[in-house]
């Protein structure tokens, strides 16, 4: 029997108080995510239960019980306080998927700090944008990523501490840098956890938009309510499950469901800190007897590409429930998973801003391959007209809109209340995604309503890439779009016109690719560059990305009356 029971009956009787009651929380109480994921689980009699089973790329395995995690997160929280960090300080996590990443996250929350996770493949330019905007007080990183931090530290006056988790003493640390080994210092058995309340800031996740630099979506400790109950109902996490969320905590799935949702439910979770290789993934499922698997369409399609034969080499019978997030899951992937695993992947839809799952397919509910599913109980969703923002008829494509007020909803964009306010129209939060609803209430994704590129389940802003491209010595101007891709849904494509004195060549193409990869991130690197003489612009000089996109996809260009130059 699935945790959710009947979806239809849950729709009628669910309120967020159900989750509050299960978590023994009453309005006005102290609520600290760090405490809920560690101390509370221990108090419930699960001290010795494995909390984290971690495997590195070299095959090394580490296991931590809930009690070990409780003490380690106490130790980290204590260390941060001793360092002079205070509640409300933004503390960045910038590292691979090592155990410290997970425990530092909870340690920061325990001492009242705001955890600011950033994807470890980000380059210096991506880092400085996000650390500068958040006026981050400290960054916790690994020595392998230290050089990227050192390149920008002098431009970050607010950054007081650079904490290196694996400094081996071979090279001296510099000003503001300090070494901290969580397992080599005196363990802190008891720590006075910060008495955070529902609206106390907890996590700051940066997300990309069409215009301007990335914005920090600010979440609060009360998000726990949504994350706990959606992990229970959608991921169907049960006491004896072994759960694997493949997302990196540099992104919201990796924190909402790769840390908070699973551990608030007291479930054992596994982490594989290694690059993608189908054999290694199947081997990991077999070794750890994974029962619930939360992954992404890009990874699923990459597994499909490796073929069905390889799956027969592994015993994957432990799997019982599969979910997917990050981008729409195509029908073929659902049908494939039913064929090879005997189980469908259940698509889930949500965003950095929503903090928890909004629309989903549920265990026990009929899955229509290719559909996003139906709204989570407690969530009021609809599709609205893009101009009037009024709900529209069944089957008509419009914008997905959610009635504000669910616990995990972001509370603001850091330093950008104006853009935050603009996301709410006619009493709805407008997601920026287009979809339709069929007669049975299932949602069907159509695409983004803006120029944001969804590549491999991650959003990339074209403006950020175009700005960085202009810093390359050969680039005069550029326009960046998402090009449809069979595995990643979209990949970054850049149209570039060169400055006088530069000529297009394969070497220049490679040089520009690497320039962006190192400056921003591998996700932002154009996988394709087209050199053109001039870019389509409006009379006011704005590059018309939609014209570039239409040209790329062969779609109708639409109204080009504002176009300045010929195509």
């Amino acid at each position: 029997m699935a945790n959710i029971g009947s979806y239809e009956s849950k729709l009628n009787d669910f309120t967020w108080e159900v989750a509050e009651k299960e978590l023994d929380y009453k309005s006005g109480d102290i609520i600290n995510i760090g405490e809920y994921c560690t101390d509370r689980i221990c108090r419930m009699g699960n001290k010795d239960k494995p909390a984290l089973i971690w495997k590195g790329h070299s095959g090394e395995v580490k296991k931590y019980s809930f009690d070990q995690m409780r003490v380690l997160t106490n130790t980290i929280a204590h260390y941060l306080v001793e360092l002079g960090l205070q509640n409300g300080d933004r503390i960045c996590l910038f590292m691979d998927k090592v155990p410290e990443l997970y425990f530092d996250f909870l340690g920061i929350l325990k001492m009242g700090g705001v955890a600011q996770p950033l994807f470890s493949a980000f380059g210096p330019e991506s880092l400085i944008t996000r650390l500068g905007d958040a006026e981050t007080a400290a960054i916790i990183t690994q020595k392998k990523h230290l050089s990227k931090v050192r390149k920008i530290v002098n431009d970050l006056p607010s950054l007081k501490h650079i904490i290196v988790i694996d400094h081996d003493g071979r090279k001296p640390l510099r000003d503001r840098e300090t070494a901290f080994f969580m397992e080599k210092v005196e363990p802190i058995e008891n720590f006075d956890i910060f008495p955070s309340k529902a609206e106390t800031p907890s996590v700051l996740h940066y997300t990309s938009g069409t215009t301007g630099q990335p914005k920090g979506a600010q979440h609060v400790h009360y998000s726990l309510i949504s994350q706990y109950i959606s992990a229970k109902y959608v991921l169907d996490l049960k006491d004896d499950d072994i759960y694997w969320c493949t997302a990196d905590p540099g992104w919201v799935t990796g924190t909402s469901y790769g840390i908070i949702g699973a551990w608030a439910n007291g479930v054992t979770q596994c982490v594989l800190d290694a690059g993608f290789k189908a054999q290694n993934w199947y081997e990991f499922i077999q070794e750890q007897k994974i029962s619930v698997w939360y992954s992404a369409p890009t990874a699923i399609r990459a597994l499909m590409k490796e073929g069905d034969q390889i799956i027969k080499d592994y015993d994957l019978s432990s799997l019982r429930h599969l979910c997917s997030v990050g981008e729409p899951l195509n029908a073929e992937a659902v049908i494939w998973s039913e064929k090879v695993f005997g189980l469908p992947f259940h698509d889930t839809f949500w965003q950095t801003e929503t903090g928890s799952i909004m629309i989903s397919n549920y265990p026990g509910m009929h899955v229509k391959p290719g559909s996003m599913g139906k709204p989570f109980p407690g969530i009021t969703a609809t599709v609205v007209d893009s101009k009037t923002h009024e709900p529209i008829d069944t089957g008509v494509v419009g914008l997905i809109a959610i009635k504000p007020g669910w616990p995990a909803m972001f509370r603001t964009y850091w330093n950008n209340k104006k853009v935050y306010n603009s996301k709410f129209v006619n009493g709805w939060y407008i997601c920026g995604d287009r979809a339709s609803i069929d007669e049975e209430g299932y949602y069907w994704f159509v695409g983004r309503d803006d120029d944001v590129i969804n590549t491999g389940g991650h959003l990339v802003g074209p403006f950020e890439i175009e700005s960085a491209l202009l810093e390359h010595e050969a680039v005069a101007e550029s326009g960046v779009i998402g090009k449809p891709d069979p595995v990643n849904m979209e990949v970054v494509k850049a149209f570039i016109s060169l400055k006088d004195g530069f000529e297009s060549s394969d070497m220049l193409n490679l040089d520009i690719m690497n320039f962006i990869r190192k400056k921003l991130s591998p996700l932002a690197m154009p996988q394709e560059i087209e050199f053109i003489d001039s870019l389509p612009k409006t009379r006011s000089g704005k590059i018309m990305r939609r014209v570039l996109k239409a040209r790329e996809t062969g779609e109708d260009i639409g109204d080009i009356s504002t176009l300045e130059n010929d195509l």
Partner: protein
Amino acid sequence: MSDIKNAILEYIKNEYLEDEDEDEIDFDTPLISGGIVDSFSMVSLKVFLETSYKIQLPDSKATPDAFDSVNNIYKLLKEFNIQ
């Protein structure tokens, strides 16, 4: 043979390792499964090989497995008579 392998190794060290990364890599070091080259960066490695050796690598050949070490990449290049 070793010239080609050394050139690829040098490129990987310069392009994909950070300045402070002290881990030594050799011809057998796992690149993709070891997290040194991610799936997005694999595209730039493919373009490097195509540009340097004047070949076209079809997607069916440019797999994570084929790119997982310098030795694997060299094996792939041999299929295109690069040796």
